[in-house]
């Protein structure tokens, strides 16, 4: 404990010292970017309305956030992503546990997941439309496919990292498969699971929203492409800001809840 304190103090001091200059620099960068943006907007160098003023974007942001229909679209997208996460996450969990628990299965099938993982999933959208229709089903399917790969690969990798002693303890207590999964495997690989969910959420969000931009009449993706089609640039910027805040916030929140920041710090 004393050693830990002794180690943590200088680290805390080194981070505490540059706090003010860092904050000042951040404020300066944001201010500088704002001024540049405003100058470009006022200069008319780019096509009219492509770079609207910050005030216009702020007004659009306020208008969107105070419009009840926005929350209907947000709810639709959130619902699709949630269902996609459940389907993709649970199937990824099951496959990850199977592959992580068996050397033979891992060596037989994991390479397929590993190499299919980085493929652009949006190319499967025409198939998903044929299978699940043009409604929310195809968007959910896109999100689920996107989410499946990072979850499965992280869990398979995490399971192989589990301390063998824990597994032997579980077996010595004659735990059945369900008990092994819930009492040993999942608690022991909390970090890979959370990391998989975090990555899965990111790609499920992208998959679902891209599918909405391609073919949909509801959802945030639909709003973005609608703003493009009527050339409502302030609305498009405002929607993108909202999307990025939600995506980055959710990513950070899952990371914090799962204690991923603790791993980085240690």
């Amino acid at each position: 404990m004393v050693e830990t304190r002794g180690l943590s103090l200088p680290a805390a001091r080194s981070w505490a010292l540059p706090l003010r200059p860092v904050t000042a620099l951040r404020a300066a960068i944001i201010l500088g970017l704002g001024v540049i943006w405003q100058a470009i907007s006022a200069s008319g160098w780019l096509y009219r309305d492509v770079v609207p003023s910050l005030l216009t974007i702020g007004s659009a942001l306020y208008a969107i956030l105070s419009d009840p229909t926005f929350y209907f679209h947000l709810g639709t997208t959130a619902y699709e992503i949630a269902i996609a996460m459940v389907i993709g996450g649970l199937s990824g969990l099951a496959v990850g546990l199977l592959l992580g628990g068996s050397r033979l299965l891992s060596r037989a099938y994991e390479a397929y997941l590993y190499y299919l993982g980085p493929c652009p999933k949006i190319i499967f959208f025409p198939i998903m439309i044929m299978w699940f229709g043009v409604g929310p089903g195809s968007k959910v399917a896109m999100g689920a496919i996107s989410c499946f790969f990072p979850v499965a690969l992280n869990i398979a990798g995490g399971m192989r990292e589990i301390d063998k002693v824990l597994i032997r303890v579980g077996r010595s207590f004659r735990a059945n498969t369900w008990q092994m999964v819930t009492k040993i495997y999942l608690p022991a690989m909390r970090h890979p699971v959370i990391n998989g969910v975090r990555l899965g959420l990111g790609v499920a969000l992208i998959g679902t929203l891209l599918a909405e931009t391609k073919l949909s009449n509801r959802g945030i993706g639909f709003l973005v492409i609608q703003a493009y089609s009527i050339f409502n640039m302030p609305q498009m910027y405002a929607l993108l800001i909202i999307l990025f805040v939600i995506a980055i916030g959710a990513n950070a929140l899952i990371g914090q809840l799962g204690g991923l920041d603790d791993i980085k710090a240690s």
Partner: protein
Amino acid sequence: MTASGAKDRFLPAALGIGSLFFFVALLELLIRVGIINRFIVPMPSDIIAAFPRVVIEEHVLQRFLLTAGEAFSASILVAIVGVAGGVVLHRYHLLRLATETWVAAIAAAPLVLMYPLYLVIFGRSALTIVMMGFTAGLAPVILKTLEGLLATRRVLINVGKSFNLTRSQQFWKILFPAALPTIFVGLRLGLIFALINIVGVEFLINFGGLGQLINELAERYDLAGTYAAICFVILVSIGVFLFTERLERWLRPVD
């Protein structure tokens, strides 16, 4: 090689390939007997038969070269700007403290959703696709370059100092070579991100190479052709992934 060693090596591969063939054969059978609707899922034999047609009639080679050219252009931009960005952040400590978390946040953001914005700015052209690939691939290169430079062993830097190397010599003779394997990991990630986004945006805006091919075939309701084109894109993605993986292993020193 012992018999058990050979068995241990080839059994998983045989099981994987065997399962794939079994799945394809089962699918063919289920479609033929009418359990799966052939107007939703085409027969695997039809998909295989569609390959030569798609390759010849749809000019797959030209499309592939177009996508590869876009990916190459985006990768060059990503490499130049990303590595330079990482070097600048390494050079200016305060700037790194102020912006590293921002770059990490950008890496986690769904940047591809900016494609309608890029359509407005750059028009429905290859430039939109290249810029989208560039945007998607930039953050990992910056972060990995920074990581590689920061991870340079202290002893190497001290050796440089003992030889009274200038700042430029210190960078080119010590820091950059030491960070190169990690920088390449970033470049590989950047290339993969760029490629995913390039094919995705081609599909979404129906313009360009392989992504557009899938969209066109799907709009014509050419089922077998659509599936064949998707298989082709998957094969290309796997090929690029394998190639960059090999290259990375070659560059990385043995741990």
